[in-house]
């Protein structure tokens, strides 16, 4: 039995408090009046002009030569846009982090269901670790929805999803055509179905798993029930995850669409889940709490990180290359904006999520070295945080992005919450399942 240490509790509470302060700071500094924004823009403009005046003259002169009044209203409009982008930053920063940690929990849950449905013989000793990580799913997903909808109801013109803003929709024929799907009621109904489905599975899977612990030896009824619902969940997940990715992520750019998007998000999510499973396993093993988990288990998990990183890169490339190749204007804007304003992050994440794990985890010996896998895991997690960042931010704050106090604060806030929930859940059941028909195979597992 694991007990959460006071040090860990304090640590996560400190993270939450620090994070909350960072988020609060983000909200205090982001809401500027129109006047402030205008002054800011003029300052930026002067700054740019000073640096390369000749280029500015060439680009600006035709515009300003048309008429003075038009120019003023254009400036006003621009300032309103920038004001909204600034106001969206703390919301988006929280949303990115909230999604990221929810992905970890859901990814771990899917991996868990896969292990059960495939009757894997190596992983049962890690089931409690996976169950604990997925405990964050319910609070995590609720936070995501609260942020998505809250950003619409709290404050003005700072919603993460522009289609929630009636003023925008009134002028946008494309969004109007989609409003049968993209409206807050339908969004909430779908969200309740997804979260309800996932969390119901997680609740019963955990229940049957613990019930199997206390069952008579040879009584596999709970194991069988767990197997059945895992298969059912995987089907539900495959559908709900696609729709979830359209709802919660793709619709931040309501004009853009890609059929691959759901599976791309899926790959990202599963990598995150597996990475945290292996990191938590290594942590617990380091404390001597998971004596049955040996380096072969770590090796296998590291292989999964390796494999799914390649799979992620495959889908990233497929989506990017097909849109780049055909260059159809309505689709390509998505990548144009990302490459123009987020170049380092957009291509940097390919290095972090693909090149790095690919080179580092290729070697079989490396995959057995805990600190090595830990290090690769940290890089992969950073990479996938950036992945989520690049999915959301270009649609909300456009070029006004920065990884500063609001972003880091949000990561600390939800990271602290994640740790608290996961470790609390970990302390509620024995770390090694008993009476699972495959547990002995798993304990004797070597590769």
């Amino acid at each position, binding site marked *: 039995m694991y007990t959460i240490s006071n040090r860990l509790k304090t640590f996560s509470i400190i993270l939450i408090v620090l994070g909350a302060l960072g988020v609060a700071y983000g909200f205090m500094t982001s809401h500027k009046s129109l006047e402030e924004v205008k002054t800011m823009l003029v300052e930026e403009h002067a700054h740019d002009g000073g640096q390369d005046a000749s280029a500015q003259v060439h680009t600006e002169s035709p515009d300003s030569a048309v008429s003075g009044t038009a120019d003023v209203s254009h400036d006003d409009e621009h300032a309103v846009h920038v004001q909204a982008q600034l106001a969206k930053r703390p919301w988006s920063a929280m949303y990115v982090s909230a999604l990221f940690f929810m992905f970890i929990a859901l990814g771990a849950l899917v991996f868990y269901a896969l292990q059960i449905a495939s009757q894997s013989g190596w992983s049962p000793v890690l089931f409690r670790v996976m169950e604990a990580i997925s405990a964050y799913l319910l609070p995590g997903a609720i936070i995501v929805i609260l942020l998505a909808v809250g950003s619409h109801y709290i404050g003005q013109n700072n919603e993460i999803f522009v289609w929630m803003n009636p003023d925008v929709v009134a002028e946008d024929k494309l969004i109007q055509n989609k409003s049968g799907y993209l409206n807050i009621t339908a969004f909430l109904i779908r969200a309740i179905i997804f979260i309800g489905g996932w969390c119901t599975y997680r609740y019963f899977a955990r229940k049957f798993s613990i019930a199997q612990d206390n069952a008579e030896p040879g009584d596999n009824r709970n194991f069988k029930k767990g197997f059945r619902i895992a298969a059912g969940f995987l089907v539900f997940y495959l559908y709900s995850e*696609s729709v979830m990715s359209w709802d919660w992520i793709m619709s931040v750019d309501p004009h853009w669409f*890609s*059929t691959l998007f*759901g599976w791309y998000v899926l790959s990202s999510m599963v990598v995150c889940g597996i990475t945290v499973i292996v990191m938590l396993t290594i942590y617990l093993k380091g404390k001597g709490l998971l004596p049955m988990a040996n380096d072969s288990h770590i090796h296998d998990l590291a292989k999964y990180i390796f494999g799914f990183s390649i799979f992620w890169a*495959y889908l990233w490339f*497929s989506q990017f290359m097909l849109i780049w190749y055909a260059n159809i204007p309505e689709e390509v804007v998505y990548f144009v904006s990302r490459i123009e304003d987020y170049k380092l992050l957009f291509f940097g994440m390919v290095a972090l999520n693909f090149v790095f794990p690919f080179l580092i985890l290729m070697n079989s010996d490396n995959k057995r070295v805990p600190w090595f896998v830990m290090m690769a895991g940290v890089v992969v997690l950073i990479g996938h945080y950036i992945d989520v960042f690049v999915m959301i931010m270009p649609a909300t704050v456009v070029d006004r992005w920065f990884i500063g106090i609001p972003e880091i604060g949000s990561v600390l806030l939800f990271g602290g919450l994640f740790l608290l929930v996961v470790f609390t859940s970990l302390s509620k059941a024995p770390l090694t399942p008993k009476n699972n028909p*495959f547990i002995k195979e798993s304990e*004797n597992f070597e590769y």
Partner: protein
Amino acid sequence: MASHYEAPIRRPLVLGEKSYHDVSVDIAKPVEGKANKSWWIVFSISLAAFLWGIGCIIYTISTGIGVWGLNKTIGWAWDITNFVWWVGIGHAGTLISAVLLLFRQKWRMAINRSAEAMTIFAVIQAGLFPLIHMGRPWLGYWVLPIPNQFGSLWVNFNSPLLWDVFAISTYLSVSLVFWWTGLLPDFAMIRDRAVKPFQKKIYSLLAFGWSGRAKDWQRFEEVSLVLAGLATPLVLSVHTIVSFDFATSIVPGWHTTIFPPYFVAGAVFSGFAMVNTLLIIMRKVVSLEDYITVQHIELMNIVIMITGSIVGVAYISELFIAWYSGVEYEQYAFLNRATGPYWWAYLLMMTCNVFSPQFMWFKKLRTSIMFSFFISIVVNVGMWFERFVIIVTSLHRDYMPSAWTMFQPTFVDIGIFIGTIGFFFVLFLLYARTFPVVSQAEVKAILKSSGQRYKRIRESGES
């Protein structure tokens, strides 16, 4: 104990009271025996179909592509449909031998040899189409980047059709090497059992002097693992590249980003169905029911069910995004599929691919050999229509209504397709008589952990 422990809940993979010797005898029997009458009948039919196909190919090449049913709007129809279909079928072999190896699935041992053979024979059929659908196939070698006397005129590396050349040729060569390496210990077994000098000579050549020393086995295992690791991305990339032929275009119904993984899922789906078709017959004909058990068929059915569901999600994603995109051409492309002149093909594809695998949720059905055989045929019909629907319905009505038209295959289109089926079976039938159709070395490796006899001994506590 430790490494030989297997959970009692797992069902045996090798039935009957088999010893190592029994395995060798059972597997060598078809190779050592003589072909019976029904083999000759089926072989003759296949050969006739093959020859008919060759006739059609010669006729096409000597007369011109105009003998096919293609027209100015529809430049691709049965040729590329068959190409993609055959490539897709080939994928299951690599999946079984490589991906299932990476996932340490012991049940693959009994089916991997035949699945790989199927891959190779299917890729050979697929490889015919890129050549014969050319207007000037005798200039086919121009697709290769060879230094030449045209001022080193080069190929353009931007075309997915060129990527196809590299993908298919790499795929065929790697699969061939992977298959052959695995065959070495088995050829050696046949060689060592051979009594006729000619047979001994042939299998000695084929076995490359395999003597089964510890060092050889160690390297053999390592090579298999590395090749499996390489073949897995290869198998994904090959069908991905095939899907790029369509997805990189701007044709409504073709240009969609989901094609790469969805084609791969479809390939695994149709490939497993074909493996099931072949193995259900083969286990009976060459009496390998103890090795290719109902459990193997059931597991293949589960894979069919899973990939069928993935394909189903992809269909629904495409439909949803077509509506969501607000692009009227895209919306029309899908409306046309469902309600246009080819509605019957679309309906057939939906029924065969989305509904039929769902029957596999019922244990009664997925463990029924007759039903599995029936569904495996249905799936392959469905997957042929999937490719046909994607290709033809997207082409026959796209941007300009003035270019709308229909497609009618001629007897040459059909004849070539029948010819490839004949060729495939010619190769497969010859294989089944001359090659060890089950990997005896690998089955022997799992005999003591998963053989029925040893499981029984363990459970009774005798060991």
